[in-house]
């Protein structure tokens, strides 16, 4: 059933394929080692001078407003509690929440309250 020549060709493809995959990833790895070596050299050169993008990493801590850590802890805890509370309130009601969301959009109709109010007013039925 199986043609021998097909299997031999398959073997050839296998040898070629495995070789190429290894060759390509080896070359890629070597290039990456080279890039990493370049990077370390560049960083070494730059270190005496201020680093090229220090703004992002260094500026942040200075922006931190000074407020007493205890107060911050209290407020943070309270906000987290509030958020957790809020999340807990929402979670048990996914059904209801989804409903209202979906009906509002269904039929591609938004803000139908206003439309209806208008219609009811001019209709006076």
């Amino acid at each position, binding site marked *: 059933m199986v043609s021998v020549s097909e299997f031999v060709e398959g073997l050839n493809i296998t040898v070629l394929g495995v070789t190429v995959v290894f060759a390509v990833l080896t070359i890629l790895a070597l290039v990456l080692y080279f890039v990493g070596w370049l990077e370390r050299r560049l960083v070494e050169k730059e270190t005496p001078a201020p680093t090229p993008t220090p703004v992002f990493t260094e500026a942040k801590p200075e922006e931190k407003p000074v407020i007493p850590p205890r107060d911050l802890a209290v407020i943070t805890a309270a906000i987290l509690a509030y958020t957790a509370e809020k999340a807990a309130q929402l979670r048990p009601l996914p059904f209801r929440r989804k*409903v209202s969301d*979906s*009906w509002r959009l*269904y039929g*591609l109709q*938004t803000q139908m309250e206003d*439309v*209806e109010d*208008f219609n*009811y007013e001019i209709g006076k039925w």
Partner: protein
Amino acid sequence: MTGLEGAIVEFFESMGLLNLSVGNVIMILVGLTLIYLAVRYEMEPLLLLPIGISAVLVNLPLSHIANWPIAPTLPEGMEENIFATISYLNQQYGPPGLFDLIYYLLIKTEVVPLLIFFGLGAMTDFGPMIADPKTALLGAAAQIGVFIAMLTAVALGFTLKEAASIGIIGGADGPTTIYLTTKLAPHILGATAVAAYSYMSLVPLIQPPVIKALTSREERRIRMEQLRPVSKREKVIFPIVAMIVIGLLVPTAAPLVGMLMIGNLFRESGVVERLSKAAQEELMNIVTIFLGLGVGSTMRADSFLTAQTLEILALGVVAFASATAGGVLLGKVMMKVSGGRINPMIGAAGVSAVPMSARVVQRMASEEDPGNFLLMHAMGPNVAGVIGTAVAAGVLLSVLG
């Protein structure tokens, strides 16, 4: 300096202003009216605004945003072949404008209506219908309006294919109307689409008088029991079962119902929220833009400014009113059979126009008795009406398509 003078003369001659026909002016006014209704009274703005503004744009002469006719005369045997058609149109009428591409590649191939149905499925909660399956029958009864309007249209001299496209307006379902009209009578697509979306906005005006005429005050005051809760498992099984049942019975309705149910399965399964959200938002918004622009681009003077269009608008009212009546009358039958445990008004919600008609029912119930909450009960017929209209469209397609 004659070269320049010549160029100026030529420029003036090809100026749109000097090629403006009376038909163009009227169509621009029609487009402006739709924009006004959408902006001022928020009548289905998501569709009437794009439809209106693109109706204005395509009626500015020579604007090259829509170069191809909507219902062209094609060589023998080419009609069914969309790819041969667009190549032929390109040869005959020049390169496509953006609106030609939208119309021929997205609307005419039904890609857009089906993706809208997919998004609607992801937005719809069929829970109320699953909780009380008998309400599905009310969604069926409302489809009587489709056929009454169709017969009236035939009586007025429309062909059967046109009449079917007009009748489906009574299904109060925009994408189904566009789907069916595109297949059966594309030359009246602008009129039926505008009628469908306009009357969907006017449901709070059209339905109450019909409901009041058919029900007594006592009937309107009937309170209904609370619906049973529906489990997640039932909600997941529903779209699969509905797709298989309807697909096996009415194959021509399978594309519409299938996409609706795929969207609903994405929603209810709970495991593909990314895709469900995409169906409801990203994809839905983009598709809605193309739907509005594509439908609006069909509103050309030659095919829209006919006596037929006025007749279609009039027939739309007939369709909506008779659909409401059909639903309410079956509601009364079910009220009798159930020994007064069903409020007949919820039948009116069977026209779909989700969720407008259910809200109308709720409001009328509250007026008679502020403690009467029918909204969820009306939602059953309401979503059943979407399925019913798709099935009706499938039957019409299988007989006439």
